């Protein structure tokens, strides 16, 4: 058995410092694989987006005119206010409905949980048009929802063509986006903490309030901010179930783009939504720790992983 000393190294066999063939080859391969997607995205998404952003400052004339118009024109201002209000209501009602549901998902047996996940995922992936059409049938004058409302003494409430009807339908359409991030956070919470809390003398309610609620807050923030930004730019539901009198910002963008070809004005509104979206998601990311939208879509794309 040889001793633990070795022959001295020959100068030629020592690789020069900084030569890292494996790592470099790997990086080149990675880039090659990524390039097609990156180019496609830049070409068909990023560059046009930049074009619109620039256009919102230059079209029809350079300056902040498009943005000043947003806030000086009373009609647009009212639309903006209505959009914000609807988005807030949809978010709050969604939270109230989604939280207990997501919480129940964590308590359920594996089979029940699979059913509950499916119940969320099916609408998530089910035709947007079909779901909105269904709401149109339900909330029309003389429809089922009106019937139910008149049973509880609220007869003659018009829903189709109003912001209320739009908000009701949007709450249901966007609810999966609320439940999925909350569930993915709640799933991580160690339920023994609740038992520990109770063993330390706290009541069930107070343990929930002081232990579970704070731990589930990242999910609440994620789901809430995601639904809020989705509601801000939502087009299909207001376009189908609303009316010009109850228009939301997305409808105005559509009209300006397709009917008026006013890309500067539409662009300014789009940029406004984009900025609010980025701020909301950025804040949520900072508060909740993860990429909100990505988390929700990851759950949706990968099942209950």
């Amino acid at each position, binding site marked *: 058995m040889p001793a633990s000393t070795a*022959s001295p190294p020959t100068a030629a066999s020592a690789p020069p*410092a900084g030569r890292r063939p494996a790592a470099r080859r790997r990086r080149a391969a990675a880039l090659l694989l990524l390039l097609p997607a990156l180019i496609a995205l830049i070409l068909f998404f990023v560059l046009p987006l930049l074009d619109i952003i620039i256009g919102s400052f230059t079209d029809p004339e350079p300056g902040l005119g498009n943005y000043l118009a947003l806030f000086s024109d009373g009609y647009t201002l009212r639309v903006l206010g209505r959009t914000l209000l609807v988005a807030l209501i949809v978010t709050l009602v969604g939270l109230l409905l989604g939280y207990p549901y997501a919480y129940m998902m964590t308590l359920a047996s594996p089979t029940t949980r699979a059913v509950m996940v499916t119940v969320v995922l099916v609408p998530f992936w089910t035709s947007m048009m079909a779901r909105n059409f269904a709401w149109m049938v339900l909330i029309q004058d003389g429809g089922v929802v009106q019937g139910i409302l008149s049973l509880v003494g609220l007869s003659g409430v018009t829903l189709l063509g109003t912001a209320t009807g739009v908000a009701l339908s949007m709450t249901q359409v966007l609810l999966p986006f609320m439940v999925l991030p909350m569930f993915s956070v709640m799933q991580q919470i160690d339920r023994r903490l609740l038992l520990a809390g109770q063993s330390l003398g706290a009541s069930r309610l107070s343990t929930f309030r002081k232990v579970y609620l704070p731990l589930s807050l990242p999910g609440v923030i994620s789901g809430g901010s995601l639904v809020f930004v989705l509601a801000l730019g939502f087009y299909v539901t207001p376009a189908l179930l609303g009316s010009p009198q109850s228009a939301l910002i997305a409808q105005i963008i559509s009209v300006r783009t397709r009917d008026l070809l006013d890309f500067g004005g539409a662009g300014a509104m789009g940029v406004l939504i984009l900025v609010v979206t980025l701020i909301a998601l950025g804040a949520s990311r900072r508060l909740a720790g993860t990429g909100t939208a990505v988390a929700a879509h990851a759950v949706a794309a990968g099942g209950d992983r």
Partner: protein
Amino acid sequence: MTAGDGRIELTDLCKRYGSGPLVVDHVNIDIASGEFITLLGPSGSGKTTTLNMIAGFTDVTSGTIKLGGRDIAPLPPHRRAFGMVFQSYALFPHMTVAQNVAFPLRERKVAKEEIARRVEETLRLVDLGGMGGRRPDELSGGQQQRVALARAVVFSPSVLLLDEPLSALDRKLRQTLQQEIKRLHEELKLTFVFVTHDQDEAMSLSDRIAVFNAGRVERIGTPADLYRDPGTRFVAGFLGESNLFSGRLRPGGVYEWAGHKWAVRDADGLPAGRDLVVRPERLLLAAAPTDVPAGVNSVQAKVTGLFFQGTHQRAELDYGDGMTGCAVLSPDAMAGIRAGSSVTAYWDPAHQVLVTPPTDPHPNEETA
């Protein structure tokens, strides 16, 4: 395969990520063909990085790796022809056991009948004959690791690299597989390079152990040598238990610790800053000072705990001055000793060793 094929020489091997510290720091090991060598150390000590450099998965920052006298730097990892076994088994889940074992032979374009023959032969070698049709997820953890072993040796590599192969198994299974690995080594006569942080595993399997600490090889030698003469305090602490005293070596063969003066042999010319180590099984206990024989070194201790462990009893000791240790004795030798009592611990000076205290050459690299 000719003798000498499986000799691995690591010369001044270094690894540094970016501009960080050296995570492997001038490692020199000469592994003989057919030797079973263990790279032992705590996590982050550089042992796994060293193994990955041998396998070719990690680029070498500087230094050389030679196999059978040839520099293998230009060889990409798939041409190095080392068998490798992973902690996670790394069996391909989309292939059967036989397909897994056949994989390296297929890659080498071995003839079909030859593949079938060698797969079955190798599966029998690891006691899995007839299991070729199963899927990996139908096997137990121990069986999976045996498939991984079979797959890693089926193409007759000259060297087998094992990266903590037993860490994911429970204690009992681990012992069975240790024997299996030992037997495989004896039958195949390959060079085994085994990485682990488990000292018992290292001691019971290896021909030699290289103890890693903070990227360096702290000491290398046979398990018995390292246990008897650990050389450094780190090795003494990592391999087995010790009673360790940080005192001073005085001229004239005297070791001084907390007012005690102990006889030391063969200490001429050693620097004064040495630690003294006594292994627990070398320590004897006396209930009364008068029971201590002449010619031994002794120290007062308080018994803080007594534990019956079947073949022996174990006494936890407190020497005062913040020093604790333990003694392992036959139940007879423990007669009259109770938890909480004061005793005299003594030992034959021939059974003590002096070790180098930690010099902490890279104070910031432990975490790297």
